[in-house]
């Protein structure tokens, strides 16, 4: 009898722990908007602003993209007419890299920048994220859409921001989220479809770009000064470069990543 009472007591304690865990996890979700840039923007003389352009090259053996097998999910297979390949290392025809996130990571800390009021959109379409790599400022709205005829969950795995994992059934309304702290890069995945991966760069300033089909980037509107420019590639890591720009100047900063 005493054992049964002890068991009942333990069950109650465990239930309490469960209830607390649910409560705690909700608190984590609710703190996501803290840390947004609230101070007034620093005035910047637009007549003196500079530009950094460049391209991200690749040397080494060109990787063979792997085919993603979507046959376990009929809605995903039906949404794509041909084979779908991995995006972790996309080498363009001119031996440059696509989807490299390039950002000013130092040199602009004395400035305060207004957080854009427009949202940055990521769409789940064909059981892939579009775009695969994207950037936004801390506190800026990320709008998440689901254009697919299936359920996804969007699950960023940040280190400095609260983690969240939200389900988006077919036809659900766009979801709006914010990251309060700058963080480069936050991996995003869908646990329903494990091949779905994206990366989000959250910055303190508006000086970032993502390379496209020609491997080039352009960062405009920089006040004259010396900056640390960092290029992030999800598989090959990151590289940094010091760049000094004068008033109205356009500087070139090229990166080269070496493959296997």
């Amino acid at each position, binding site marked *: 009898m005493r054992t049964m009472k002890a068991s009942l007591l*333990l069950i109650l304690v465990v239930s309490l722990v*469960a209830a607390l865990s649910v409560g705690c996890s909700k608190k984590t979700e609710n703190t996501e908007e803290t840390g947004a840039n609230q101070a007034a923007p620093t005035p910047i003389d637009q007549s003196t602003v500079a530009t950094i352009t460049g391209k991200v090259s690749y040397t080494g053996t060109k990787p063979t993209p792997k085919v993603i097998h979507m046959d376990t999910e009929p809605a995903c297979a039906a949404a794509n007419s041909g084979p779908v390949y*991995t995006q972790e290392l996309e080498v363009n025809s001119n031996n440059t890299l696509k989807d490299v996130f390039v950002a000013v990571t130092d040199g602009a800390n004395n400035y305060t920048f207004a957080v854009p009021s427009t949202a940055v959109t990521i769409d789940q379409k064909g059981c892939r994220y579009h775009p695969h790599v994207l950037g936004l400022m801390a506190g800026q709205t990320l709008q998440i859409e689901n254009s697919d005829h299936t*359920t996804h969950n969007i699950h960023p795995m940040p280190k400095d921001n609260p983690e969240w994992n939200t389900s988006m059934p077919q036809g659900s309304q766009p979801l709006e989220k914010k990251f309060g702290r700058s963080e480069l890069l936050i991996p995003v995945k869908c646990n329903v479809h*494990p091949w779905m991966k994206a990366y989000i760069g959250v910055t303190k300033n508006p000086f970032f770009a993502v390379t496209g089909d020609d491997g080039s980037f352009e960062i405009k509107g920089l006040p004259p000064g010396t900056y640390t420019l960092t290029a992030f590639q999800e598989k090959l890591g990151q590289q940094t470069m010091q760049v000094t720009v004068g008033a109205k100047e356009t500087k070139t900063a090229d990166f080269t990543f070496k493959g296997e």
Partner: protein
Amino acid sequence: MSRISEHPTPEGAALHRFLVFLSAATLFLIVAGALVTSNDAGLSVPDWPTSFGSFRMPPMVGGIFYEHGHRLVAGTVGLLTILLTVWVLMKEGRPWMKKLAGVALFCVVVQAVLGGITVRFFLPPPVSTFHACVAQIFFSLIVSMAVFTSRGWRSSTVHLEDPWGISLRVLSAASVGVIFLQLFLGAAFRHFWFNVIPHVANAVVVTVMILWTAAAVIKRFGNEPFLKRPAIAAMALLVGQLILGPGAYFLLVAATHDPQPTQPMVSVTVAHVVVGAMTLAAMLVLMLRTFRVVAPRHRTAENMEMARSVTG
């Protein structure tokens, strides 16, 4: 109303069959859980205890099939455990069996809560590892209860002496301990808590202990099928594990840069987990049976004779 006791009864046989069924159901639950981990589907249903905000069946696609399927199997095993507890409380004559049933039910509750925490807190490695370990503890409990209700257990008494070397009681208990440690280290590796080295190092210890224990059984009690069968089973399962373990690791490493879990990797890693649980069960059966029929060292021949005359 008849009560189940140490002596064989039809009630006892029915409970034993139910416990064998529940052991099989629990092993299937371990398969379902291993599939969730190997398919990286643990967070495909982001909420708990509901699935997508309700208790209705969600679309069983992608990772949801594995995660929600695991919850359904777990719920079924939970209900069967409630039934077991009621059955044992009402029909069992042995008080310690009632306690075991209570502990099994408690394990179910703990396991559900650990599963919930692991989902709500995005798979914290220690919690996910303990979730895997409590599964093995629950499985061991149900297997033990199945042994305690078996005809062989109820009709056997202490009748063997073990005066050679390290006693079989110590060997079998140590083997159970190192196998459980191995399952913990394997789970810690699978859930990104530890690296693989402790699991590999302990595999050597497990291999030595199982072979030593099985050899002791064959050498000392080779004509006792009650002990020999689980010893042979443990050795056969060990051979399987020695093939599956390296296979699982190399397939896991090979699949690192694949866009999704590969079928060979999933199959072999799940088989490695399940055969590990079966190895623990085989050695546990051997240990329990050893404690049932092999006299402890301090027991004299006179005591054994007395035991024979009392039970006979």
